[in-house]
């Protein structure tokens, strides 16, 4: 009998939760939806390609395929003040303008090497707001990528239920 109770609890735990009760709605999609799209279509496209340039696809998925551009936009729309949001917009426009000035075509039409050159120029820009823009997008891109299910489960040894704690064990040999 007691054992059955324990098993039931664990089964519930393993099954996860299917629905959220009303009181937990403070952070659901409905309540945190911004009600507007932060970026216009051109800015959005530049963001997508910027994220893709920062962490591109190779023999493994890149940040773009993992939905990171949407994550970056959502984070800035929901979790940052208006001046930061504005700086994201002007920063993305500046990226596009820099591409046009340097390569005579929009950022999204540039090849990977050209895009990296443009982004490097932004990264080392003398303007503080440009540097901040670059850091913001890069940091959020890294956050979105490294906390994605794909990266955590396939590459970062994600183990939500270790079941033990060993205080002093040999360190795994560094991979590369």
């Amino acid at each position, binding site marked *: 009998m007691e054992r059955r109770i324990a098993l039931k609890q664990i089964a519930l735990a393993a099954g996860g*939760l299917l629905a959220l009760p009303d009181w937990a709605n*403070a952070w659901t999609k409905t309540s945190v939806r911004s009600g507007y799209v932060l970026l216009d279509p051109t800015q959005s496209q530049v963001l997508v390609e910027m994220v893709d340039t920062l962490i591109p696809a190779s023999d493994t998925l890149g940040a773009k395929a993992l939905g990171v551009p949407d994550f970056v936009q959502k984070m800035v729309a929901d979790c940052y003040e208006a001046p930061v949001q504005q700086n994201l917009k002007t920063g993305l426009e500046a990226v596009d303008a820099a591409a046009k000035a340097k390569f005579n075509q929009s950022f999204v039409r540039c090849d990977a090497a050209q895009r990296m050159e443009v982004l490097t120029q932004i990264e080392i820009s003398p303007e503080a707001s440009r540097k901040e823009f670059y850091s913001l997008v890069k940091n959020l891109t890294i956050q979105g990528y490294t906390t994605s299910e794909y990266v955590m489960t396939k590459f970062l040894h994600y183990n939500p239920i270790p079941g033990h704690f060993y205080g002093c064990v040999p360190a795994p040999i560094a991979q590369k």
Partner: protein
Amino acid sequence: METCAIEAAMKPNNREKNRRATVRYDAIVIGSGISGGWAAKELTGKGLKTLVLERGRDVKHVTDYPTANLNPWEFEHRGQVPLAVRAQYGNIRSFMREETLHWTIKPDEQPFVEEQPFTWTRGYHVGGKSLLWARQTQRWSDFDFEGPARDGFAVDWPIRYADIAPWYSYVEKFAGISGNKDGLPHLPDGEFLPPIELNCVETHFQGIIAQKYNDRQLIQGRCAHITDPQPIHIEQGRAQCQHRNLCVRGCPFGGYFSSNSSTLPWAEKTGNMTLRPHSVVHSIIYDEKKGRASGVRVIDANTKEMLEFYANVIFVNGSALNSNQILLNSTSSRFPNGLGNDNGLLGKFVAWHNYRGKISAQFDGFLDKTTDGKNPSNGYIPRFRNLHKQETSGPASRFLRGYAVGVGGGRGMVQNREGMGLALKEQLLNPQLGPWNVSGWMMGETVPIERNHVRLDANLKDKYGIPQLVTSAVWTENDDKMVVDYMEQMTEMFAAAGFINIKALDSHSNPGSDIHEMGGVRMGKDPKTSLLNEWNQLHSVKNVFVTDGACMTSTGTQNPSLTYMALTARAADYAVKQLKKKTL
């Protein structure tokens, strides 16, 4: 035990009165947190029909932990709370994460007046802060109980370690406490399940301390985690700690002790418990003719209707300051200044723990070693300052009492975030083990003083019509000097251990930031200078027991929850014995 359920409601002669006085119980417990859960378990277990009142919503074990099994990528903002949501919480900052936001109250639930800055973290839902606590469970010793008498502050505790020791054992066995038998007189051993391991650097530090100091020790902190489930835990439906360290989301395994996983379901199984969420206690009803408390006035949080419930015995476990508020608001002709407040000391001598001192460092040894799994506990250095006597020379002579220290750390994974493109990607997919980090945090005893108090505001009321609580509490010179000593001593100890990049600081956090607020309804021997006797009964209203943090005469340095549990079980046992003897 005689139960008189629904008796009052059945009397035919007063329809209005009957509508309000729905049910009569043997006992009422105000609050369902760590001490209220124990009161509920003990009273129902001894046959009392018990009403448990909780001002917040219900939280059922497992099913009401909505984030417990979510992965990082399932949080829309990876845990960060959107600004628009955050704005609804004013300057409340505790548990302000997507993982835990549902445990946080909004300011309009219980506004209070901070005469000086005070952080008051509340857990207003079934289970209270037993879902949110740090789960460290160190026993007090007579070095703590004898403190006020020895050093001449507050009043003498009416109990000693021998009075509470069997009750520590009693609650430890049920709750499940892991720890080492360390044989320290100032941090007595308990009924321990196997300890959690220290990590390489903690063990190294332990050795250095043992070698260089004869007055201090580093041990593994005792904690309320099941490391080897016993039949009593399996009977509760609880399993072994899985080392997820997601405890504050609620543990679906019941790996750590909470009211929700342990005491409340146990009370429920007796058939004697009625749990009533959304019940904001307004005040305790005092029967002037009988000279005792007769029940509790409750405001239904949903309907805002005032209800009355009656019982023979009332346990006040609303959390320290909220219990003060309830008693202060329980006025009558006999007690115009609050229930049991003949001496005017109700709400005074509020104290807490001094968590201001912090220290961090790194260690460049053991680079071939790391940890595996997650550690729900940490190293612990029991109090060593002014322990056996108050020093009269040397640095410890500058202040009264002392501090315990938590010690923790480990190796994090370090991302190389340089560059962009394929190189960056490769780096991110191959993070490297960083250096060993080690940190320490101070847990200082604060000396209760009359000036630090809570009281009711004369004009301001909350949305339930209850007068708002004024918190008036400041750090003292004693606290400041203790922080300085902590930083000096810990820097010296860290340096002796060969730690590098040592950074000690005073966070200057608000009083209350420790979430260990205590006192206001202190225990004592003399009704002239205390509110509660040695059984946690109000001296002048014997059927009211206060067994949460409000009862604390002094604060010790130990995380206090275990002591609240033991005091509650002890008081409940006493209360039922008195009821049976018809002397209550």
